């Protein structure tokens, strides 16, 4: 069950997240990313100040915003019944180690579908100058009691 009234709700900004070079490498290793994601010299040759994060790294930041929703009593989302349906990342610019990021989540839609609920969350990720760098769009399916 999901409270349909949370559609359109905006949640507070998350605290700043400093993208650490070794965290980027740790994540890159976990997703078996190619050498380009680990090698600082390579990143510099490509014109970056530091390592570029692997494309799904913003999930780490999205996770912080999602945690706020899942602990919101108004949302009534039972985490044990949640299945990840879809995920998308749209980049305005690459995220680089050293970036100081915050995120803000809004509930784009809540739909009911054959006993299940589908919730779409848009998480906007901003840098220190408050410029949008990436939007992470996540669709969660919350299975109904009988599903």
């Amino acid at each position, binding site marked *: 069950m999901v409270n349909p009234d949370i559609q359109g709700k905006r949640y507070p900004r998350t605290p700043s997240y400093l993208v650490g070079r070794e965290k980027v490498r*740790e*994540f890159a*290793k*976990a*997703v*078996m*990313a*190619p050498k*380009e*994601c680990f090698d600082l010299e390579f990143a510099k040759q*490509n014109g*970056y100040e530091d390592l*570029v*994060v*692997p*494309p*799904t790294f913003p*999930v*780490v930041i999205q*996770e912080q915003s999602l945690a706020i929703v899942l602990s919101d009593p108004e949302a009534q989302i039972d985490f*044990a019944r949640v*299945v*990840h*349906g*879809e*995920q*998308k*990342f*749209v*980049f305005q610019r*690459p995220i680089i180690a050293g970036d100081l990021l915050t995120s803000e989540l809004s509930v784009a839609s809540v739909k009911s579908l054959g006993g299940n609920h589908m919730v779409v969350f848009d998480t906007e990720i901003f840098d220190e100058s408050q410029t949008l760098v990436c939007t992470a*769009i996540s669709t969660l399916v919350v299975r109904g009691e009988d599903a």
Partner: protein
Amino acid sequence: MPEITELAIGDIVAEKNFHLDRDSLVRYAGASGDFNPIHYRDDAAAGVGLPGVLAHGMLTMGLSIGPVVSWLGDAGKIIDYGVRFTKPVVVPASGQALITVIAKVVELDLEAKKARIDLQTSFDGNNVLGKAQVWVQL
């Protein structure tokens, strides 16, 4: 860096196999912060009616883009990446799950120098990601 003018619709630009074991799932749990126990404990997975311990969907999504990053030589050229999670990847307690990724050109925007690459990620003969689409800036 590949040149957009050298690409044609239907070109396979990258192809790679990945082997996932339980260690891979624990490593991803730690790196991502997603510690849902269905990704490393058999009893937790069985308790919610799953066929076994499942790989994180985000792990499958994350590794599927690797071959495209390698082809581009620059993760910063990926401007849009989305997937639908259609089937679970069951990872045995011992042994490995084999995942195959094929990346194919499906759309070219010569003016904006953008290409759409679709990924086919399969496990056990089934596609586990649907609508796995990547836009790259060339």
